[in-house]
């Protein structure tokens, strides 16, 4: 089986490539890259005129909701949404029902992913049993079962002693701990960024400090432990400053930010449209600009979507104030991102990746693209219909991309 992708703009930062190139693919591997490859009989052809051709993107933070909440999303629908956006690999969080805190759940996710086929799915297991923040999961067993990292995402590991032990234990196993930095005692029932806008519109606020005290705590612990710590969906200028300082002090840490925090600010909540209700909340314009600076200077390693669909009656219908549907303590936190965000993410490192098949993507970087894949189950898309700026993808952050590849074994 041969496939020729012609007339596209090949973008592969890891290989330092950003120019018009044709690709010939044979049996799932790139056979030839050249300025112009001739058509020959028996070739399938994709005319990629006006499109970016790139290695498959990786999203290291998604919620596929399976097992347990297939009314929101499933491995099949999530994988379909991912590949539509050019994401050939996603790492899925552990707040399923039951929680992915033991090997059998991890293995069932992998088995289901294999059945579905579409994308590479890497399960992230919980840090603590039941994500209750008390007892560590059987990390070694979970890694053997296929878990690639550990995170209580959706919740913060609130006890400093527990995150300390998790980081120490994970160091032995050389796996990352992904922290959802949020002091729940500060954020409590908050809905939006705390400040003038929350006061004016009568919405309960979440102080930036709710995130920053945990970022600071983990970085202080990490100074000594030197494990693999990743801080996910950081949203404030203060967090960026803390991480930047830690990096300068050679404390090992990596971080991601979401497309919605990079592109939107808190002013969106003025319409009371629940589509903009995300956790952490959209912050101020100053925070947003600092996140972008952090991304540019390498303080923030990558963009991750926090794709987290909710059903419409749990999310779209819910008014932005205090109303929560019965039993929905978990609901309303995160948001599925728009399909268009996929163009914003950086492609994974080049063809030397460890997987047997190579994944690629061809799409128009200036076009919002089809969104039905995410809409079929999720509530709202904060970036829906928005034309996004196309960043210069070429060359940026090559070493960091390699770093990330090592860290997550993706």
């Amino acid at each position: 089986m041969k496939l020729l992708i012609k007339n596209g703009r090949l973008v592969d930062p890891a290989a330092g490539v950003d120019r018009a190139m044709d690709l010939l693919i044979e049996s799932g591997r790139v056979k030839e890259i050249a300025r112009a490859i001739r058509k020959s009989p028996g070739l399938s052809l994709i005319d990629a005129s006006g499109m970016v051709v790139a290695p498959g993107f990786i999203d290291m933070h998604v919620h596929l909701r399976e097992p347990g909440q297939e009314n929101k999303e499933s491995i099949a629908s999530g994988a379909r949404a991912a590949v539509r956006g050019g994401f050939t690999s996603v790492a899925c969080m552990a707040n399923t029902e039951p929680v992915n805190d033991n090997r059998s759940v991890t293995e069932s996710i992998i088995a289901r992913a294999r059945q579905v086929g579409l994308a590479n799915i890497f399960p992230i297991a919980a840090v603590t049993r039941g994500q209750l923040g008390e007892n560590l999961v059987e990390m070694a067993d979970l890694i053997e079962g296929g878990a690639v990292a550990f995170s209580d995402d959706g919740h913060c590991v609130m006890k400093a002693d527990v995150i300390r032990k998790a980081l120490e234990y994970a160091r032995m196993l050389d796996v990352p701990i992904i922290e959802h930095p949020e002091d729940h005692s500060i954020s409590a029932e908050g809905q939006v960024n705390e400040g003038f806008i929350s006061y004016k519109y009568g919405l309960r606020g979440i102080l930036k400090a709710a995130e920053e005290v945990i970022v600071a705590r983990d970085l202080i612990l990490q100074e000594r432990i030197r494990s693999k710590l990743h801080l996910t969906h950081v949203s404030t200028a203060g967090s960026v400053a803390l991480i930047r300082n830690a990096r300068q002090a050679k404390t090992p840490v990596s971080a991601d930010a979401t497309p919605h925090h990079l592109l939107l600010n808190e002013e969106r909540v003025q319409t009371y449209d629940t589509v903009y209700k995300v956790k952490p909340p959209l912050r101020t314009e100053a925070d947003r600009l600092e996140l972008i600076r952090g991304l540019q200077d390498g303080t923030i390693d990558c963009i991750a979507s926090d794709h987290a669909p909710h059903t419409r009656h749990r999310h779209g219908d819910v008014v932005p104030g205090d109303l929560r549907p019965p039993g929905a303590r978990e609901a309303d936190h995160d948001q599925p991102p728009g399909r268009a965000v996929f163009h914003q993410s950086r492609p994974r490192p080049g063809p030397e990746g460890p997987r047997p098949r190579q994944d690629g993507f061809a799409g128009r970087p200036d076009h919002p693209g089809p969104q039905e894949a995410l809409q079929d189950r999720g509530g709202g898309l904060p970036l829906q219909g928005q034309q996004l700026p196309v960043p210069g993808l070429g060359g940026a952050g090559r070493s960091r991309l390699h770093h990330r590849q090592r860290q997550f074994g993706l």
Partner: protein
Amino acid sequence: MKERTFRQDHLLGIEHLSVDDIETILETAEAFIEVSSRDVKKVPALKGKTVVNLFFENSTRTRSSFEIAAKRLSADLINFNSSVSSLKKGETLKDTVLTLEAMNPHIIVIRHSASGSPHYLTTFARSSIVNAGDGFHEHPTQALLDALTIQIGPPSLVPVEFEKLGATVSYDMRGGVKNADVVMMLRVQAERGASNYFPSIREYRNRFAISRELFALASKRAILMHPGPINRDVEIETSMADSEQSVILQQVTNGIAVRMAVLYLLKGEVHETLN
């Protein structure tokens, strides 16, 4: 009466009203004050119209005020009590409102603890929506019957960011009250967790309650306002609540006129019906 210039479909908050809108409401309300003083307190301005009081929070005085306002305009009014409704059975807010809408009401008056809930209703409802208080956000008919406002309280309840709204924030009662023409106290809303924002009622009373001695600092003809229900000897000393300067009960009477004006301006036929 002035030519009707009110062009709003809903009353969600004061923020989106023009000065003209506000003047129209207040002038209309003045005309309705007379109706309430009549022996037969009824005009046919909303005859044949249906008003639904959709209250998800207990607020007896606001609900009664809207009820009396609607009835004095000859509207048919039903009270939808959330405690006996299907919301208890797990129905969503949207489904509840769609069900009510299937009964073709003209106006839905909503009280809900979630900020923004009236705005949410306007995204799908056909009726006129009137906000009768949405959580920490607005209570526009209350604001309309309160003209001038001075808010004073501890910073955990009244963040300094309120200054961006045009208010002067002070945490010193004596300084705040001094030479004021209107002193408006607000209730400590224990049901919204207000009491977690300061150490104790005792300390709050000692620091912020309006007393005779404090009120003496205000201007000579100052009035004392309070939206009610009052917490005697918490934010307001009993002797002050019952004083001549207190217009607290007058606010209740004016509230009916303002609500009549709002209902009328939203769905009333032509203004001749008033005369």
